[in-house]
């Protein structure tokens, strides 16, 4: 059933010619016949693929057979399963089913998606897969002290509406701004049409004839964009994290969130690579933080794929951190700071950007506006760069490294030293002369970079981390 909806969505481009009135008048009959035929074929195909989609569990393996014209057999041993996600989007909510995803550590293609499963079945299947997996892991390497503790599940945290609103208000408005900006730019032509229809002014003419009117229009747009991005950001954040619930199951955590699309993810202690805490001034005011957790994955994790826990407090961070790292939360670190030279690197890009904007405005609105905007933007960028440099540092201790970054916001990433895959030192042409280096730390979920450390420090850290990796006996993914 889900399949059908998806296929119709995929083929929607076939109906695009309908938008042209010319084609609509001449070929409407053919289009309708084609459409019906397509629909029938889709229906048949979907039904067949539904009949052929079969999975079962045998021994310690999960088997799946699917396909219409050719069959694909997939066979996953339980101990290769990395992650199980249960999702529910709007259509699935209507049909009262859930989507079930199995992730493996392979190169991405081995992922299994079951599109419609009743919730009870999904939970039962998940229980079986996870339980057996835990057993097989425990029996395999007993030295990793993974005693099969009784699986007690307690709700650690439930995001109530008040706090959800705070999360929305303190989100990064730049994301919403980008979205709105693109939207408005694409709609600009359209808006212009409306304007000229209703108010009978030609924007093109207005630009050049009347400076203050132009300024008014621009100001209006800026205010509009800011207000719209505010609402878009707040609403999209609320929709995303609606009724966030974190449940602790033994050492692992289950996370559930989303308004239109309920997402259920498992944070496995052994798979956790990077633990990220995000703060910004507004969040500090509300006394909340965001936590993002990256797990071992076959692809470089984008921000979207990280498991986000919005609106948690220090108390909950302590619990999370403690159970994922076996360490108490505020850790002591020996810190190494980025050199102030890092600011030059940041400023080069920013200055180029502000020069481009300034020059553009200079040609358009004259020297006064161009210069003014250039100075303001440069000052703003200098401030951001300065903050970025000041916040950029790395801290080490026996068990964990902390990568500290951010500009207006603050971002702290924690990685267990034994989970690091490899370390690299990068020095560009300029750094080779002034004895500085960038440190890149690779984990199973991607790479993290610390910019512009002193060469000697970077080498020491690399050697130390490498020693830590090679002398550790703990499993890392």
């Amino acid at each position, binding site marked *: 059933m889900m399949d059908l909806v998806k296929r119709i969505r995929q083929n929607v481009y076939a109906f695009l010619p309908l938008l042209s009135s010319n084609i609509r008048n001449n070929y409407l009959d053919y289009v309708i016949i084609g459409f019906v035929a397509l629909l029938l074929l889709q229906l048949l195909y979907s039904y067949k693929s539904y009949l052929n989609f079969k999975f079962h569990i045998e021994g310690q393996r999960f088997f799946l057979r699917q396909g219409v014209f050719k069959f694909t057999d997939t066979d996953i041993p339980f101990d290769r399963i990395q992650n199980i996600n249960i999702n529910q989007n709007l259509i699935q909510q209507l049909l009262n089913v859930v989507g079930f995803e199995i992730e493996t550590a392979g190169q991405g293609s081995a992922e299994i998606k079951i599109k419609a499963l009743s919730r009870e079945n999904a939970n039962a299947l998940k229980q079986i897969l996870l339980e057996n997996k835990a057993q097989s892991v425990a029996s395999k390497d007993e030295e990793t002290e993974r005693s099969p503790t009784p699986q007690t599940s307690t709700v650690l945290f439930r995001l109530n509406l008040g706090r959800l609103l705070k999360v929305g208000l303190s989100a990064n408005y730049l994301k919403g701004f980008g979205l709105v900006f693109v939207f408005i730019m694409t709609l600009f032509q359209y808006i212009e049409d409306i304007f000229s229809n209703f108010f009978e002014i030609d924007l093109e003419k207005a630009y050049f004839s009347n400076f203050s009117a132009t300024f008014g229009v621009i100001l209006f747009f800026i205010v509009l964009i800011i207000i719209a991005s505010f609402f878009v950001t707040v609403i999209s954040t609320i929709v995303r994290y609606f009724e966030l619930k974190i449940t602790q199951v033994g050492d692992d955590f289950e996370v559930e969130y989303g308004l239109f699309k309920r997402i259920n993810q498992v944070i496995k202690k052994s798979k956790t690579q990077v633990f990220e805490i995000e703060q910004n001034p507004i969040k500090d005011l509300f006394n909340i933080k965001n936590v993002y957790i990256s797990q071992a994955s076959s692809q470089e994790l984008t921000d979207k794929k990280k498991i986000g826990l919005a609106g948690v407090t220090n108390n909950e961070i302590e619990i999370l951190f403690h159970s994922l790292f076996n360490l108490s939360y505020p850790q002591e670190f020996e810190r190494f700071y980025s050199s102030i030279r890092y600011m030059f690197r940041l400023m080069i890009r920013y200055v180029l950007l502000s020069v481009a904007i300034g020059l553009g405005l200079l040609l358009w609105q004259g020297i006064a506006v161009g210069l003014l905007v250039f100075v303001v933007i440069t000052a703003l960028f200098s401030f951001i760069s300065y903050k970025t440099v000041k916040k950029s540092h790395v801290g080490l201790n026996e068990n964990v490294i902390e990568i500290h970054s951010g500009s207006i916001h603050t971002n702290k990433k924690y990685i267990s030293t034994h989970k690091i895959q490899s370390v690299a030192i990068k020095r560009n042409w300029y750094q080779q002369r002034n004895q500085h280096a960038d440190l890149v730390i690779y984990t199973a979920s991607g790479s993290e970079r610390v910019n512009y450390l002193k060469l000697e420090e970077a080498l020491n850290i690399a050697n130390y981390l490498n020693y830590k*990796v090679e002398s550790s006996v703990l499993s890392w993914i």
Partner: protein
Amino acid sequence: MLEFQNKTLDINNLPRFEQVEGHPVDRAYLKVLRILYLFWIVLMFSILMTLEILIELPQPAFYPILGVLIILFSFSILEVEKGFPRKKFGIREKDIIFQSGYFVFTQTILPYKRIQHVEIKQGPLFKAFSLFTLKIYTAGSSAGDLSIAGLNKNDADKLKAQILKAADIDNK
């Protein structure tokens, strides 16, 4: 710094990767790289010249393109000629070290125990010079994968054997 050293072992006594004597990759690889950039230079300039003669590019288009091409190629020639002597790999008991790059000098340390599998590859041009590329895969995302190009048969086999041996010991 002092406090840190007391807490752990003396950081200065750790084995230092930067002191490892690196083995250069095969000299024939330099020839391959030179052939590649000469090929691109000849190709791009002949395209530009053909365009100029056939459809007469306007002056403000021709010179900037020429300039960009010259800058791009001088950078890549510098990178190859100056960077080649820096392409070195080192093997230690527990890890493999690879360094390369003129404009951005990169040194990577990859512990054997984090290696998932190894692959020896050979393209057509490499075949003509009997060179190999050793690709080392790590778990998870491909960000940490390491590929060492321009090894001769002997080095490639030795490296692979060493990695497999170390991985074997580790698994026991």
